[in-house]
């Protein structure tokens, strides 16, 4: 069964550094998403991406964040100048279409900013 895959599973970075979290969505899916979950808190939407552009984003997704689909398979989340509060589990998801379809989630990348 096709799955969304995320790498790395755990990333440790120093405060102020840039990190790139990588995701390979399911191959025939058209919509891609990033969510995050700070320890002990709820899963929060960051951004959705369709047709090579951001289709929806939350207030969390400020200039510190960017997303890209650099080739036909990868979907990346870049976090510039990381802060301690960026430490969280980051989930990538994809869906075949947007509205009314199921989102399939990856295993997540645990980002620890020290």
């Amino acid at each position, binding site marked *: 069964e096709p*799955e*969304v895959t995320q790498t790395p599973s755990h990333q440790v970075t120093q405060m102020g550094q840039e990190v790139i979290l990588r995701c390979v969505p399911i191959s025939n899916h058209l*919509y891609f*998403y990033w*969510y995050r979950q700070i320890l002990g*808190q*709820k*899963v*929060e*939407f960051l951004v*959705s991406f369709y047709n090579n552009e951001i*289709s*929806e984003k*939350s207030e969390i997704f400020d200039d510190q964040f960017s997303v890209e689909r650099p080739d036909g398979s990868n979907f990346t989340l870049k976090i510039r100048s990381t802060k301690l509060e960026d430490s969280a589990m980051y*989930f990538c998801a994809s*869906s075949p279409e*947007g*509205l*009314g379809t*199921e*989102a*399939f*989630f*990856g*295993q*997540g990348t645990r980002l620890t900013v020290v």
Partner: protein
Amino acid sequence: AQRVTQPEKLLSVFKGAPVELKCNYSYSGSPELFWYVQYSRQRLQLLLRHISRESIKGFTADLNKGETSFHLKKPFAQEEDSAMYYCALRATGFQKLVFGTGTRLLVSP
């Protein structure tokens, strides 16, 4: 703004007992409601959605618009049901899912 509330952080039951995981939402329009489950060391996966009105793994959930609730129920819990359960809402015209804080279900033998 949309909000999903799951009042119980932990629900502990014995095998064979009925289970009800509560979910209430706040949204002025017609929502799409989902239950996602995360088993130990596995990914979030869709358990069921109110549109399909089906039973998955013995679980059912009914959307009650009057009470703005979408509680998840199972008449006889099994040990393999132990997991984290998240209720989520998608508002009309939006792609994003709004999640509750989750309820950990622990089914003991």
